């Protein structure tokens, strides 16, 4: 029954520590060669899930398949996985070469084979000049490269990354992010990547699984997650600055909030007919049209500027809509000052509408 192009399948995975449930009946299918990012705030269970896949934690219930093989009871080294840790976890007393070959030596692979695999990994990661150094003599970026190399030499089907870039400074993080993406393009392995950084998630992932309290809230491409969030939580979590939310009512194709009436014409409802109900309208700050674009927007209005945050590439403007703070992202070249009245435009097709009670997308 297992479809062969599934690289990793997780069935009904549950993990409890005493009374605390960390993972709850979790199901996840990861395709061959896919880059899947597990994204969530701390404590959501994403690292725990990764540790379960690696075999470092025993699940309370459920099954894990890798390449169609049930690995639920197998040791980490028998699962065909390589893992990269946040703190690099390099063996301090071994040279880089020793670090790379430790797993291979344990598997009793012939010396010549070890030699060639280490050389290949070192070439791919450009760490050849470092092979005879100790980890203590390397910079953070170099260390993380060696850690990736340790997974690379194992010649495995699945790579697991546990927040690999969180210990690096911002510039290095951006560099290594690109390198990991390139590595994935060249190797075509399945990669599962845990992070709390939405930029990493959006840029790297083929699909993102957004997790919250041990459950997957939404699984989809970065485009789906960003443009069609299935719940208010996901909508709020993804995007920086985060989405604006207006509380109100959905009544016959209109969204009403106070004296504000917005026609939802153009918005794709999840069901053909939706009864009137309390609702929340979500609008991303970057989806508010300003300047010359306003005239093209289906809905137009005016707001008073409260506060301006210039960020160089763009400018964040705070205003009041329906009595609540409302963020608008403008072009960095726009010149606005507090107190200005500026015209704004909305496009309902880019907005998100949520049920006020269930917080799910309508």
């Amino acid at each position: 029954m297992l479809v062969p192009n599934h690289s990793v399948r997780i069935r009904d995975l549950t993990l409890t520590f005493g009374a605390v449930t960390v993972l709850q009946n979790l199901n996840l299918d990861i395709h061959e060669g896919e880059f899947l990012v597990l994204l969530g705030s701390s404590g959501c269970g994403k690292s725990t899930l990764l540790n379960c896949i690696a075999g470092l934690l025993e699940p309370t219930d459920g099954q894990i398949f890798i390449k169609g093989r049930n690995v639920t009871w197998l040791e980490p080294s028998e699962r065909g996985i390589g893992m990269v840790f946040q703190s690099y976890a390099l063996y301090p007393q071994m040279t880089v070469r020793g670090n790379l070959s430790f797993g291979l030596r344990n598997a009793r692979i012939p010396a010549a084979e070890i030699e060639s695999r280490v050389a290949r990994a070192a070439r791919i990661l450009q760490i050849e000049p470092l092979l005879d150094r100790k980890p203590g003599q390397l910079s953070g970026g170099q260390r993380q490269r060696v850690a990736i190399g340790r997974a690379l030499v194992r010649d495995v089907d699945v790579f697991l990354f546990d927040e690999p870039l969180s210990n690096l400074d911002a510039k290095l993080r951006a560099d290594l992010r690109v390198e990991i993406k390139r590595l994935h393009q060249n190797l075509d392995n399945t990669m599962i990547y845990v992070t709390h950084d939405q930029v990493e998630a959006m840029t790297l992932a083929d699909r993102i699984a957004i997790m919250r309290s041990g459950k997957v809230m939404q699984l989809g491409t970065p485009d789906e997650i960003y443009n069609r969030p299935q719940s208010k939580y996901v909508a709020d979590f993804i995007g920086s600055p985060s989405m604006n939310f207006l509380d109100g009512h959905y009544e016959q194709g209109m969204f009403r909030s106070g004296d504000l009436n917005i026609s939802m014409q153009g918005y794709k409802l999840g069901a053909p007919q939706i009864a009137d109900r309390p609702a929340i309208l979500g609008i991303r700050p970057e989806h508010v049209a300003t300047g010359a674009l306003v005239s093209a927007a289906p809905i137009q209005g005016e707001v008073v500027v409260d506060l301006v945050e210039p960020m160089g590439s763009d400018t964040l403007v705070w205003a009041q809509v329906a009595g609540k703070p409302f963020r608008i992202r403008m072009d960095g070249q726009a010149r606005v000052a507090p107190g200005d009245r500026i015209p704004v435009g909305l496009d309902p097709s880019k907005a998100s509408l949520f049920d006020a009670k269930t917080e799910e997308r309508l």
Partner: protein
Amino acid sequence: MADPASLNTLAAIDPVGDRTGAVGHMDGPRGRRPRRTVSRANIFLYGTLLVVSLYYLLPLWVMVMTSLKGMPEIRMGNIFSPPVEITFQPWVKAWAEACTGINCDGLSRGFWNSVRILVPSVVLSIAVASVNGYALANWKFKGSEVFFTILMIGAFIPYQVMIYPIVIVLRELGLFGSLWGLVLVHTIFGMPILTLLFRNYFASVPEELFKAARVDGAGFWRIFLQIMLPMSLPIFVVAIILQVTGIWNDFLFGVIYTRPENYPMTVQLNNIVNSVQGVKEYNVNMAATLLTGLVPLVVYFASGKLFVRGIAAGAVKG
């Protein structure tokens, strides 16, 4: 707004110079504040240090000086004065000739007994305790915390309570009176504190290192021998120092669990010093005591820095 010319004029006004009266000049305090060498605080500090070190060094001085004097000179009573005529005879006698009971071969017999007790006890106790600590820190099993707690309680039970039961246990094992019986006792009594020491040290090693080794296919022993051991020199030094000094200085177990021919150095020292027959040979007693104390003394001097580092490392995380 930030016109460089206007900034320059602002600096030229020099509000500090205004306050200190040195308008136009950047005079006044600069750099590190000078401190007086002879101040009340310094006199108090160094005075205290001097008195305390004298307090500790004087007995040692008296012992060394007395051990280098002949008996006639000692009878003159000037215990603080250096010897007029230096003699090493008391040291020779203490090492090779002093009598305890029927044996008259000095402390040397006790010294070698102590070495024969010390080496296996230290090796065995540290080997077992380091594996204990590693297992308790990294391979938690059901009940491992309970096991650890029970082991710790062992550290708080007074030795005296256990003396007689251990006599019986050793008798049943056929080890009573032998050197190996004493080795076993030392190994067991070192276990709680050494296990605690190693457990805390291994618990401070990042968990991800251990996880990485498991992904790399290393098992219990390989992780211990190839990953953990090479990282834990400081804590091994601490353990060795604790055990060497503790076991070397032990008197109670040595006198209870061994026969006279196996008595460790401390017990023999006591027998020499406390013998009631004949003249009290203070110089020989002093030399014998110094000889006995030499081993821990050398260990401390040789390993001071490592010891402190290891103790600090073992203290992290409870």
